[in-house]
C-alpha cells in the first residue's frame, strides 16, 4: 500500500518504488481524489466602480486543462482567485461540478499557485511545507513533505531559508505547497513569471504530469509557450468577459497570441 505523489498517478511499478513513500495507505493505481469539474455561473466581480468580471459563465469538464489568455487587467487573475474562493463574487455562483445548480461544495479545495510564491521567506523550504501540511491537518506530514521535496528537486536544500532561493526554486516550493493536499483542481496564475528557460521546461514537465494524472487545471498565461501548448482548451478574456473559447488548433493558437480568432 503506497501513498502516491501528486503527479505519479500513472507512473509504472518501478517508478512507484522510487517516487512513492508509504504514507496514505492508498494504492498507486487509485487516485486520492475524484476528478472534478467547475461551473462559473454568471459571475460578476466588482471592485468599487471597476467591474473586473462581467457575466462569466463557463463549464469546465473534469480533467480539462484550460488556458486563460488576455491582456493585463482582463480579469484572468480575478477569475482564478474566485475559483480559489479567495475572492467572493459580487454576483453569480461557482460550483465544483459541471452540472448547473449543483450547489456550492465547500469540500473541494483547489491548489493555487499565484504570481507571488505564497511561502515565507524567513522559513526553510521544509518548514514552509510542514506549516501548511499541519494547517491542512494531513496525515504523516513529514513523509509527505519529504516526498514532495524530493519530487520538486529541493530535498538537498530543504533546510535552506526560502529567501536564499532563486525565483525558480521558490516556484518549486510554491508548487509543492499547492500540491500538499492532493487537490483535484489546480489553479496556476502565470506560473512561469520570472522563470528562466530551464525553469519553464521543468514547470512544463510538472504541469504535463499533473494534467495526465487527471487533475483539472486552470492556468492564466501570456502568449504562446511550452506551457500553453499543454492546454486542452483556451479561453480569452477581455475587460472581464469571455470573448473566445475553443478546444481546436488554429483558433486555440489565435487566442493565445491575441490574434483575431
Amino acid at each position, binding site marked *: 500500500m503506497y501513498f502516491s505523489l501528486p503527479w505519479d498517478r500513472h507512473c509504472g511499478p518501478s517508478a512507484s518504488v522510487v517516487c512513492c513513500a508509504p504514507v496514505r495507505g492508498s494504492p498507486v493505481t487509485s487516485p486520492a481524489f475524484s476528478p472534478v469539474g467547475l461551473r462559473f455561473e454568471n459571475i460578476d466581480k466588482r471592485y468599487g466602480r471597476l467591474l473586473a468580471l462581467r457575466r462569466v459563465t463557463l463549464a469546465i469538464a473534469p480533467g480539462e486543462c484550460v488556458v486563460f489568455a488576455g491582456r493585463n487587467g482582463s480579469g484572468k487573475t480575478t477569475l482564478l482567485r474566485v475559483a480559489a*474562493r*479567495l475572492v467572493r463574487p459580487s454576483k453569480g455562483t461557482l460550483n465544483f461540478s459541471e452540472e448547473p445548480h449543483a450547489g456550492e461544495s465547500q469540500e473541494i479545495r483547489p491548489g493555487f499557485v499565484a504570481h*507571488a510564491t505564497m511561502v515565507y521567506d524567513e522559513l526553510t523550504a521544509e518548514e514552509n511545507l510542514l506549516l501548511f501540511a499541519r494547517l491542512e491537518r494531513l496525515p504523516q506530514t513529514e513523509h509527505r513533505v519529504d516526498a514532495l521535496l524530493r519530487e520538486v528537486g529541493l530535498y538537498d536544500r530543504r533546510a535552506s531559508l526560502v529567501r536564499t532561493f532563486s525565483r525558480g526554486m521558490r516556484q518549486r516550493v510554491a508548487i509543492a505547497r499547492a500540491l500538499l493536499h492532493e487537490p483535484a483542481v489546480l489553479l496556476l496564475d502565470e506560473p512561469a513569471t520570472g522563470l528562466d528557460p530551464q525553469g519553464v521546461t521543468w514547470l512544463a514537465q510538472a504541469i504535463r504530469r499533473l494534467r495526465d494524472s487527471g487533475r483539472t487545471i486552470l492556468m492564466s498565461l501570456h502568449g504562446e509557450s511550452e506551457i500553453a501548448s499543454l492546454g486542452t482548451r483556451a479561453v480569452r478574456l477581455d475587460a472581464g468577459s469571455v470573448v473566445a473559447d475553443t478546444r481546436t488548433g488554429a483558433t486555440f493558437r489565435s487566442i493565445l497570441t491575441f490574434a483575431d480568432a
Partner: protein
Amino acid sequence: MSLLPNAAVLLGKELRTEFRSRELLTTTLIFILIVIVLFSFTFDPTSDESRRFAPGLLWLAFLFASSLMLQPCFLREQHNDTLSALRLSVRDPFAIFLAKLAANTLFLLLTELLLLPLFAIMYNVPVLSVLHWLVLVFFLASLGISIAGTALSAISAQARMRELLLPLLMLPLLTPILVASTEVTKALFDRTPYVQWKGIGFLAVFDVVFLTALWLFGEYLLEE
C-alpha cells in the same frame, strides 16, 4: 474542530519567524527604552512625582510601542501573498487572528516585563511587592491592545497610507485601555498600594467584547 490546533501551528510560525529575525522585539524594546530614559532625564522626577505621572508615561510608551509592533503584523503576510495561502489552508480564519493576537500579546508582555526593572530604578518606584498584580494588569492590557490592534492591522494593511492609518485608528480606540491600566497601575504604585478592581474588571470586559467581535466579524476583514 480545527481552530485551536491551527492557531497553535500558526503561533509556532509567528514565534519562529520573530525569534529568528528579532525585528519586532528589538524595535519595540529600544523604542520604550528611549521614551523611559528621555522622560527621566527631562523631568528628573522625585519619588512622589513618579508615583503620580509615571504610570501614565509607562502606558503611553507601551501604547505607542504597540502601534509600532502591530504595524507589520499583516503587512508581512502581503509580501509574498502568504495571507492567501493561509486563507486557503485554514478552515476557520479566526485561527489566523488568534495566533497573531497571541503572539502580539506575548511579545508585548515580554517587552513590558523586560523593561519593568529599568523603569522601577529610573523612576524610583517599588514594584516587587505588587509584581503579581502588575503582571495581571500588563497581561489584560496587552491582550486588549493586541486584540484591537491585530484587527485594525488587518484593515489598515489593505488600505492606502497603511503606515499612517494604523496609529490613527488604534490610538483613539485604545484610550479606554490607557485610562484603565494607568489608574490600576497608579493604585499599585501608591504609598499604600491597593488593587483597583473596577479597572481590572473593565480591562477584562474590554478583552472579552473585542475578542467576541473579532470572532464574529474577523473573516470579513481578510476578504479581498
